[in-house]
């Protein structure tokens, strides 16, 4: 059991897909301007990440090494279709805003990367927990950025007014440039932290 917790924990911080490996940034910056889209994106991401990890690791013994990438892509594309259809059916209003990014989960580097680096040579249960860990790691970064941006940009959280109405919203925070600035500050903070940690050793 301890092993599985470690796999999940690895996804949350030490090998966090977004912050440490810095892949899959496109969707993080694009959908982090409101909490609702961030949550829907995380949900759609989990619907692709976890099942595709399970399927790929369960058929890993039959996949010929030379054509493994096309097989990964087909599995991921199938689950992306499912997740896009579910999102369209149950969360239509938010889906309309971010549909391009949900469709583009199919080329998300995190999912293909984990299929190649983890699911292809680990057991089914380990891959399941890796998928959960990666989803949490992706989701918390995305949601954290979205909370800050929506709070400062609109004074709301998931559409509910939080700050007093006398607050002047800083419109820039929900516009595209703030996504770059936020990621820049996060990456800078993280690299400074890692540098200091390295100095101590």
């Amino acid at each position, binding site marked *: 059991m301890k092993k599985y917790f470690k796999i999940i924990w690895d996804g949350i911080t030490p090998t966090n897909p977004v912050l440490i490996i*810095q*892949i899959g*940034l*496109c*969707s993080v*910056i*694009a959908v982090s301007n409101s909490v609702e889209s961030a949550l829907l994106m995380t949900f759609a991401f989990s619907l692709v990440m976890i099942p595709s990890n399970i399927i790929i690791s369960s058929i890993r013994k039959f996949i010929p090494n030379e054509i493994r990438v*096309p097989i990964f*892509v*087909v599995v991921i*594309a*199938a689950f*992306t*279709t499912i997740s*896009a*259809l579910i999102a369209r059916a149950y969360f239509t209003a938010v889906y309309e805003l971010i*549909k*391009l990014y949900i*469709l*583009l989960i*199919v*080329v*998300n*580097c995190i999912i*293909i990367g984990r299929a190649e680096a983890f699911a292809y040579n680990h057991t089914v249960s380990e891959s399941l927990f890796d998928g959960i860990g990666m989803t949490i790691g992706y989701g918390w970064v995305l949601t954290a950025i979205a909370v800050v941006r929506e709070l400062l940009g609109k004074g709301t959280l998931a559409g509910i007014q939080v700050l007093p109405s006398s607050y002047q919203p800083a419109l*820039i925070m929900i*516009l*595209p*440039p*703030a*996504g*770059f*600035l936020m*990621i*820049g*500050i996060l*990456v*800078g*903070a993280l*690299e*400074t932290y890692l540098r200091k940690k390295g100095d101590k050793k």
Partner: protein
Amino acid sequence: MSFSHYLVDLAKIFVSSSIINNIILIQFLGLCSYIGLTDNMSSSIGMSFAVIFVTVCSAILAWIIDHWILIPFHLQSALQITAFVLVIGSFVGLVEMYLKKASPNLYKAMGIYLPLIATNCIIMGVAFINSLNNYDFVQSVVEAIGISLGYTLAMIMLAGIRERLRNSDVPQFFKGKAIAFMISGILALAFLGFQGMIK
């Protein structure tokens, strides 16, 4: 719609896709190569040419699949993602093999970027944008050209700035990739000024 209206429409699509809704700075697609390859000018130019070529070809391919196969057989909602990703992926592989054989020089200049393109979200993004907007064939091609030129513009701008940054004093906190993101933020701010240019 008369022919002149159609031409105006095409011009609008071109300006909107290349500048107003710049694929990198406003829509955030293809950030991996944008941050990863803009360390020097020559690699960003090489990547841009590869993207221009592959984007236009794959937009044509995607349009053909969409309008001749998926829509007539009512498969658009179920099979579109799989069909696009397979056809575009194998097209990029084919181009790579052909270039290696037919023109080694071009392959040397462009070849190392082609595997990167296969996982680039711009190529798939253009296919989806065209299909979501119900563009006809000419409009799809114009959109693809506009998007890839917008990509080139953003790549060259950031590469130029980063080449200059090498000799300048960057604050310790922002050393490395962080400063590239901050610059992109400011560039995106400048591009926001184009918003509302087309009604």
